[in-house]
């Protein structure tokens, strides 16, 4: 029962269930699509304005969309109380957390890949800075969203209003990461400043919060 083995098995199981139900990806996609279209009509920005606001817009859209997926992830474990079957097994608690986090990371990355062309078209986006930096920001930023999101979604699964509890817990703690994601993205898109500081901040944020979540998840899983 190695952590890696159980993580892999849980991840495959989650991906298979998502492939069959498409609950998370469909709701995330629909939500993001609405944000892109509505904001595009509401502001009708020029290419220059778009570069300045796109960082915020993109990440807020992905943050809200991710919350939808995060709630779905744990809802599956609550149906038929399947989580109890995991809790009584000798499998390491962190393996479940890692599998859920990696699963959510993949779902959000897929969403980002599907949504990126739409953002480019609707907001006439052209990156002045190097595009590879955008990829680094996207990967680090997505991990920051899902690692905390998966943890807090797990924390709030036994609460009555978990759909409301998750944003209440997640958003305040995500502010430093969100700030870094938005500023780094804007820096790359406009080419006016170096995103290095924000990328480093994101990397540190990811390491610190991943470690904290791994340390605390066993208590969350076994909480009554």
């Amino acid at each position, binding site marked *: *029962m190695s952590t890696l*083995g*159980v993580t892999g*098995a*849980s991840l495959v*199981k989650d991906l*298979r*269930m998502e492939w*069959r*139900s498409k609950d998370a990806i469909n709701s995330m996609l629909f939500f993001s699509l609405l944000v892109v279209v509505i904001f595009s009509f509401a502001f009708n920005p020029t290419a220059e304005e778009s570069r300045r606001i796109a960082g915020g817009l993109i990440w807020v859209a992905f943050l809200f969309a991710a919350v939808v997926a995060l709630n779905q992830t744990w809802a*599956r474990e609550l*149906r*038929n*109380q*399947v989580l*109890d*079957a*995991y*809790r*009584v*097994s*000798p*499998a390491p608690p962190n393996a479940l957390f890692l599998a859920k986090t990696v699963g959510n990371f993949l779902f959000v990355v897929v969403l980002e890949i599907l949504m990126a062309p739409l953002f480019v078209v609707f907001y006439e986006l052209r990156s002045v800075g190097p595009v590879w930096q955008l990829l680094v920001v996207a990967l680090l930023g997505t991990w920051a969203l899902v690692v905390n999101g998966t943890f807090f979604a797990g924390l709030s699964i036994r609460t009555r209003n978990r759909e409301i509890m998750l944003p209440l817990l997640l958003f305040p703690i995500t502010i430093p990461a969100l700030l870094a994601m938005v500023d780094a993205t804007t820096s790359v898109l406009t080419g006016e400043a170096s995103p290095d500081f924000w990328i480093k901040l994101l990397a540190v944020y990811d390491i610190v919060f991943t470690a904290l979540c791994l340390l605390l998840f066993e208590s969350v899983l076994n909480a*009554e």
Partner: protein
Amino acid sequence: MIGIAPSSPPVIVLENLVKFFGRFAAIRGISASFAGGRLYVILGDNGAGKSTLLRIVAGLMEPSQGSFTLLGAKTVHEVAHRVGYMGHAPLLYDELSGMENLRYFAGLYGLHDDVVGRHAMQMVGLDPELTRRVGQYSQGMRQRLSLARAVLHNPELMLLDEPFSNVDVRSARDMAAILGRVRDQGKTIFVVTHQAALMEGVADELVHMAEGQIVSRAEVVRDAAANAALRTAR
């Protein structure tokens, strides 16, 4: 301490176990020991504390006071691979087939051979080749698969909470017979049920609970007279 002269070392020893939900005491100072290799039927009205006791022993709840040992260990985690638990709910993924469920749960116990899942499904009378998702199973099939999940890793101790709920009489009798055969292999089984009559000819001991306490324990001699007592027991 309530106990019957054990024929083998105790698998569970409860010491002054108490469980509060807010101000309500669901378990009120239970001390008891249970010998191995027997099939115990736990009976009692709704709210008697049967399921709560089982969940504490399974490690799903912490007792408010008191302690217990399970298969000689102080914490459930140490012996988790030797314990099987079947809950009120099926504890299965609706979106997966029976074998996919069992394959996943077997992996949690470090078992990666499909033979384990196939054997468990065949044991409870289900076809391992069934590709239908569990969400499309009948209630009886779900309960059978849930039992297969609980016995999948060949545990020494099985804790079964209402295994016959919503199951037709024939399927329930089949499941009871399976439990009897498993007990005959030397396993210890605890069954919480309201349908005591189903355990006729199978149970070794009746444990009656009321208001969070064990109020009586009765050895069952598996003959016709004792089975009559089971039929009248709740």
